[in-house]
């Protein structure tokens, strides 16, 4: 077939192969709260990062479908490693789309190889769901910009070489690049959080950090709607597929355990209640996969509805992931509560996935909006409907 298909096959196979090499290490990373630097280097060398970037920047120009499947392979093994792919992809997508030629030439090749690890710093104490409330200030000062503010919950914020920081410039939302070694940047690692424990999450303090004016990404006014918007859209897409991988792994583990474990001379899988759980899990995983595939298709043709299709996929996949991981813990019994339990770790990770990149509630608001617009559209096209049926008194 054509080279695009060959590339796609290689991207998915590469991720699957890499996942196999780290499968047995992920529990220890979670326990210690560290993703070893060598793993990041190896992931870059294996071509896992920024795979959808154009080839001229060292990307693989892979299709959305291949990016999705590859992300699912990693998500089936370690959510923190999957989060590395997600954040790297978010910042790469935002720079690839809206960065200046200079910014793209400087950073995209390094992001593609993993020579630079990216962080996306949007959330603040008073700006979580409502990102329009970001207060971090970006002030012109000579030919530099001075950045002051506190960012919270930055995935890979403890180790990132390049941060995409969202703040305000002249009152307007703006996005700016900050290298990790700029004076005035302090990192406060977060430890022992519910999930994504090896994702090197940190709170960041920016105290008058100076960067050249050329570090502004897109004009002020476009930092949130376009730059952060593109990053978050990409993030939702890979989180969705990561959840599919996580849910598949939990479903596989639950099924294997139910088939093997015998209590009172009966296999767990021979109890109807347990079988029903496995049946529901199968439906949840399949539905999430199909919604993610739909998102892949509409993203491939750059359909304007792709943003909404991605919200839908992420919403459904993160819910499938929590449901299937929860049921998998139940089917495992105490084995699911073991400190090194895969399904237990994935239940914690999946819970986080319903909060980040657009929480359940926020997704529902967007999806309802979409449904109402579709209704209006069909209402306009349909012939006049009869009025309410008169009730005889």
């Amino acid at each position, binding site marked *: 077939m054509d080279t695009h298909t060959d590339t796609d096959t290689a991207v998915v196979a590469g991720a699957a192969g890499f996942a196999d090499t780290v499968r047995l290490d992920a529990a220890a990373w979670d326990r210690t709260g560290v993703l070893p630097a060598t793993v990041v280097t190896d992931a870059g060398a294996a071509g896992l990062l920024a795979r959808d970037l154009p080839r001229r920047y060292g990307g693989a120009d892979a299709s959305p479908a291949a990016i999705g499947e590859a992300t699912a392979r990693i998500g089936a093994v370690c959510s923190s490693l999957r989060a590395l792919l997600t954040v790297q992809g978010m910042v790469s997508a935002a720079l690839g789309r809206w960065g200046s030629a200079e910014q793209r030439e400087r950073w995209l090749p390094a992001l593609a190889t993993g020579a630079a690890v990216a962080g996306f710093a949007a959330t603040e104490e008073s700006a979580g769901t409502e*990102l329009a409330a970001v207060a971090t200030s970006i002030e012109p000062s000579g030919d530099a910009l001075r950045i002051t503010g506190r960012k919270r919950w930055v995935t890979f914020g403890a180790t990132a070489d390049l941060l995409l920081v969202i703040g305000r410039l002249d009152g307007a939302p703006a996005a700016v690049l900050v290298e990790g070694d700029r004076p005035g940047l302090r990192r406060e690692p977060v430890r022992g959080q519910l999930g994504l424990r090896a994702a090197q999450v940190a709170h960041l303090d920016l105290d008058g950090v100076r960067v050249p004016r050329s570090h502004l990404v897109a*004009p002020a006014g476009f930092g949130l709607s376009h730059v952060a918007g593109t990053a978050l859209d990409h993030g939702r897409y890979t989180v969705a597929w990561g959840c599919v991988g996580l849910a598949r792994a939990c479903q596989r583990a639950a099924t294997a355990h139910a088939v093997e474990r015998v209590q009172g001379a009966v296999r767990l899988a021979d109890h109807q209640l347990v079988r029903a759980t496995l049946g529901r899990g199968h439906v949840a995983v399949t539905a999430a996969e199909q919604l993610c595939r739909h998102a892949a298709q509409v993203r491939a043709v750059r359909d*304007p509805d792709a*943003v909404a299709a991605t919200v839908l996929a992420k919403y459904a996949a993160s819910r499938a992931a929590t449901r299937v991981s929860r049921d998998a813990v139940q089917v495992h019994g105490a084995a699911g509560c073991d400190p090194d339990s895969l399904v237990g770790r994935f239940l914690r990770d999946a819970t986080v996935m319903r909060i980040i990149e657009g929480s359940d509630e926020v997704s529902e608001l967007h999806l309802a909006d979409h449904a109402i617009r579709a209704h209006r559209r069909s209402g306009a096209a349909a012939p006049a409907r009869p009025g309410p049926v008169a009730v005889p008194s």
Partner: protein
Amino acid sequence: MSVSILRGMSDSIPAGAARPADVAATVRAFLAEAVGDAPEPDEDMFARGTVTSLFALQLIAFVENTFGIEVEPEDLDFANFRTVNAVTAFVGGKRAATSRG
């Protein structure tokens, strides 16, 4: 909106050939759905308060997908996107540039 229809339209309009009135009508039809009802030609659609946080990217994808143009970082100027007339002029300029290039 029916995406296939819009895509079909873009395929059938050679670069640079769309009449401004057709572009404006297509833009208005998209906006009528995206922001509630069709804005007046010079009305600031972002001032309405009915646009969602996802709208800005949907609008970009719409003009690219429908009119076969590429919105580049240099094009990020609210003057290009605020009103139906602004989007129409922007699309016309981009298509003219594409057909020349």
